């Protein structure tokens, strides 16, 4: 009898779980974003962007007459939850494509699932491993520039300035790890020597030691690779130590909030950033200018804050999928093919995309501008 009670209880529970599933007309695409948790400052912008864009699309009559529904799942910045979210989107909601996840680790975690389900995934994260080796990533694309490209942009700049010895600081999460690998791997190509390879944890509160070690090792410049508050702490420590060597940040630096938080310390920090942060300083005829302007204005109108580079990743991913669906209809395989073959010279927020069967990202170092912080604002280094 105890069992019977328990049975009723469990059944009731299960039914309530199932009760929330539904099936309707609209075309569904899914998104897995770090809406909460440590990476939520990324997921937040991305979520805002998707909501904004979906609204616009539907206002304009949807996709070939059918409304579009974007189902956003919160991965809580964790991989198990991202996996569950992916399963839910695929198995319950039967989405035709998935945008996200927001971070490299989560993206890596869901790849096996979407590959098996044969659903295209357009990741919003940076790690090179997400789309490479490309023959094993048939279904995976991404709209954030490769770490590699960001590293190339930095190294190329350094080459120009004659910097040969660098110290690198990376955060011990997936993003930092992939960045570190790229930094170490590409250095010799540019004749650069990594003299210090230091790490810290996402929750660390002082990086003086790492900076100082790099400096003592003879670094002529520091490259910090992280996202979140730690990149600001590094900046502050760097200023306090008065090392007199330049500090470079990754492409995760592109949020005004970082400058605000760092205050005067941010002056002179250099980073390869997508053009969204400097759109107003671009020449009129730049191919991205119009798109950037339109998006930034709309975003600011709706959310009263500036979008950062992360918002751009979501914008590009969404637009690619929408364009594909408009052309080939809501069919997963066709969407994938469309993106792989037809996104050529395609101006987006993060750059001008050239996706091919060999390159599922389609952005290179030229999608970055080297940007320096001057008087609390971004400035392009010519």
């Amino acid at each position, binding site marked *: *009898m*105890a*069992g*019977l*009670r*328990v*049975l009723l*209880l*469990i*059944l009731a*529970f*299960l039914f*309530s*779980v*199932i009760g*929330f*599933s539904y099936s309707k007309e609209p075309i569904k695409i899914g998104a897995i974003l770090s*809406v*909460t948790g440590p990476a939520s400052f990324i997921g937040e912008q991305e979520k805002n962007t998707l909501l904004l864009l979906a609204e616009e699309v539907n206002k304009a009559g949807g996709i070939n007459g059918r409304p579009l529904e974007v189902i956003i799942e*919160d991965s809580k910045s*964790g*991989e*198990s*939850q991202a*996996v*569950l979210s992916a*399963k*839910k989107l*695929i*198995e*319950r909601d039967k989405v035709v494509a998935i945008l996200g996840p927001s971070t*490299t*680790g989560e993206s*890596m*975690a869901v*790849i*096996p*699932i979407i590959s098996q389900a044969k659903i295209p995934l357009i990741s919003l994260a940076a*790690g090179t*491993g997400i789309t490479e080796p490309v023959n*094993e990533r048939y279904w995976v694309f991404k709209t954030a520039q490769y770490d590699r490209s960001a590293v190339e942009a930095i190294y190329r700049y350094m080459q120009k300035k004659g910097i040969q010895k660098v110290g690198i600081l990376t955060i*011990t*999460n*997936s993003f*930092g*790890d*992939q960045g570190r690998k790229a930094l170490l791997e590409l250095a010799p190509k540019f004749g650069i020597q990594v003299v210090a390879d230091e790490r810290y944890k996402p929750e660390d509160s002082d990086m003086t030691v790492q900076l100082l070690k790099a400096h003592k090792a003879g670094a002529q410049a520091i490259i910090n690779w992280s996202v979140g508050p730690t990149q600001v702490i590094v900046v502050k420590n760097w200023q306090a130590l008065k090392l007199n060597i330049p500090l470079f940040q990754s492409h995760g630096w592109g949020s005004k909030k970082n400058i605000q938080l760092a205050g005067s310390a941010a002056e002179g920090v250099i980073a390869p950033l997508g053009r969204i942060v400097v759109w107003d300083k671009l020449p009129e005829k730049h191919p991205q200018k119009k798109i950037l302007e339109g998006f930034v204005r709309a975003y600011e109108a709706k959310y009263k804050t500036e979008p950062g580079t992360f918002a751009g990743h979501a914008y590009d991913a969404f637009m690619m999928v929408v364009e594909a669906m408009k052309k080939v209809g809501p069919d997963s395989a066709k969407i994938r093919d469309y993106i792989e073959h037809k996104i050529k010279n395609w101006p987006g927020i993060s750059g001008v995309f050239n996706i091919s069967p060999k390159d599922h990202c389609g952005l290179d170092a030229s999608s970055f501008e080297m940007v320096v912080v001057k008087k609390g604002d971004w400035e392009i280094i010519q």
Partner: protein
Amino acid sequence: MKKLLFNSYSGSLFFCLLLLFAGFLFKDPYLNTVLVMAGLNALSALGLSLLMGLAGQISLGHNGFYGLGAYFSAILTLKYNIPVPLSIIISASLSALFSIFLALPALRLKGHYLAVATLAFGEIIYLLLNEWGPGGPSGFGDIPKLNFGSYTLESPLAYLIFIWLLFWVFFLFSQNLTTSTYGRTLKALHSSEIALKTLGVNLLSLKIKIFMLSAFYTALSGGIYAHFVTFLSPANFSIFYSILILMMVMIGGMHSLWGALLGALFITLLPEVLRPFKEYDVLLYGLVLTFGLLFFREGLVGTIKGWFQKWLIS
């Protein structure tokens, strides 16, 4: 019938079958996935329940065992081509050996101090996986699915059946242990270690064994997890996993093995139920947990038992 259900052996079998039945009935692969996760969590929680409810030793380091079990098994299959079931067992045993690092401090530490020592252990494993694990913090994938010879478990349903039957078997084992004198001796550990010493009980062996057993359960669950999701990265194996299963054990009811089962189902399904509330789910989740713990002081098991008694009387 009543007798049969009361008997924990058939009762638990019935319960597991019920979950399998739910899996067949709804044919919702997503729900099955969630239930597989619940099964894995239940197995981990069962291990922790033996350690905490029975032997009164707290552990915040079980994430370490979960991680070791998963990583070892994945590496064994990928690098050494060991058949998956075998590698799961080997890795669980191997991970269990690591529990000596917990059992030794547990000989001298109690309460909060033991909690921190175990937490440190779990955290060290987590950090080492980050530093030395294949793929570092980014993790690695392409881990083979669970297979028996030529038969490979593909669908969530297959995993559902596998994990819950496995859980049932381990539930029975645990049941055996708690009702035996060995189990009673473990319970005595709770109240007086000094008295046990003077009765000639070898505390070292007692503690090492129960820590190993508990670790084995959790590592086993971790191993299966690896071959279920086929991608691993250290982030899954942080301290929060330990807190999660601790929560399951407590909210289910620490003093009964059923607690691990009910707690795992409750905590695993809770986010699914809260899904329609979108971002508010964090708030609700906290609210449900807080008040769950407040009102089900004896755990879900105790509460259900209470209802049941009333039902019998009325």
